């Protein structure tokens, strides 16, 4: 646990700085109310009314996040594997090849179904 004490100290400093900046930004600047200023910025034109229900976005982003999870999981298995690689020998390599091939099938499936295409 001793290893984490310095990180905690740095976290406290960063936290203090962030809080200081947030407070300072509300206190230091001038406050001149103006109706137009508190509108969302849209290059000077009247803001477009938001579509009912908040509007929708391409489902691609969801798919990207899903792919991200899958590859993230692959990465966190690759790390301990890489660290113990020399001790595992050929057996370790075979295990990881099997794993990567399975993920690769999923990846190619997504590619084939157009999941990686962005317009």
């Amino acid at each position: 646990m001793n290893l984490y004490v310095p990180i905690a100290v740095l976290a406290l400093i960063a936290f203090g700085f962030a809080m200081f900046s947030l407070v300072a930004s509300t206190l230091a600047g001038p406050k001149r109310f103006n109706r137009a200023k508190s509108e969302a910025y849209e290059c000077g034109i009247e803001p477009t009314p938001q579509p009912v229900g908040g509007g929708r976005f391409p489902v691609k982003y969801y798919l990207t996040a899903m792919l991200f999870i899958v590859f993230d999981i692959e990465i966190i298995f690759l790390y301990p594997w890489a660290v113990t690689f020399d001790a595992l020998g050929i057996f370790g390599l075979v295990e990881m090849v099997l794993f990567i091939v399975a993920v690769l099938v999923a990846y190619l499936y997504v590619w084939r179904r157009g999941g990686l295409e962005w317009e």
Partner: protein
Amino acid sequence: MTTSLLAAPPATPLAAGEAPTLEAFGLDPWWLILAKAVLIFVFLMLMVLFEIWFERRFMARMQNRLGPNRVGPLGLLQPIADGLKLPLKEDLVPRGVDRPVFILAPALATMPAFLAFAIIPFGPTVSVFGHQTPLQLADLPVAVLFVLAMSSLGVYGIVLGGWASASPYSLLGGLRSSAQVISYEIGMGLSFVAVFLFAGSLSTSEIVASQERIWYAVVLFPSFVIYAITMVGEVNRIPFDLPEGEGELVGGFHTEYSSLKFGMFMLAEYVNMTTVSALAVTLFLGGWRAPWPISLVDGANAGWWPVLWFMIKLLLTISFFIWLRATLPRVRYDQLMKLGWKVLIPGALAWIMVVATIRVLRNEGISTQQVFFAVAIVLGIYIVASYLWDAVRGNRRDAEEQEATAAERAGAGDSTGGDPMAGGYPVPPLDAPHYHGRNSTSKEVNRA
């Protein structure tokens, strides 16, 4: 030289008291911890100021301009003036925002950025007021994983800032930016694997120690290239600065932020740039170790000298960022995602497998020549096979394409456009034939 390194762990024991290992950490007295933490914080702040100045001056030189030169000698005080100006501006909180999240987002972007720097080694063990201590705030057995975790926390600042602003530009910018960051984080995470294979550890001090003989940027050059690309994407810099694509999204996720809240986003961006550069130096460029001809000099890697080597390498890496910014245009979003998902990730995985295979064969006692011979044969088979595959497939595809074009001409009409209101917004068809020419459109038809 390279090939001899592909063997199992380097046997040379490290000189005592020189390169610290994990055991050297967690022993500092409280005042030393505090001093180091404050120093890291101050160092990062100064680096941000310096980077802003350096970026403007250096880029100006590249573009035959002078850059800021009025405030202080050589314009050195310009970033301080800019920094002081920010809090004196009005802190706008637009109507309709989600207040707590809107205020929280800049803090969420800034804090992880500072934390990730905690595990960067500046130098070997030195003596400070009689205490032997490594020039590094902290090291963990999982140090690099810690950096990745911090950078994934940084995504929250972006996505929440974009959402809470209640503005279409911000929301789109936030989504795009976070999708970009997570995509490039995968490539980045994969580029480290080969380094861990060689170093046998995730601890930064041990990775630096294992680069005593040769830098990983040399041995594992493809990993280094992948990391260099992903680090630019990860910190949203040109050519991958789409979140702030001024032409399309105004300021992206921080459009609605002003005063110091905006400043905090900028600060986080520059701190992140320092962090990924320092990580590149640590993992691939030998860390604080002296570059080759100097490393032959006795004592070049001892005492306080390594801080100098580290700083030189760090500044060169940062100059690389600025050089890129002055040289390259911004890529399109689809190009960005295509590079990330279709090139970097499969490339990184293939490279990991190649490195692992060579290493396991070496460990089993098969000589380098045999390994390269086998690799050459496999590569040859692959090239021939893919050539044949292309030739067969290409013919078939050509035929299919001709059929499809014929079918289209026969009056199939609008098969790709679909409902213009499908996405909730009235969107013009994005794939009209005149955008690409007829061929690629017919390919889309095929795929669908």
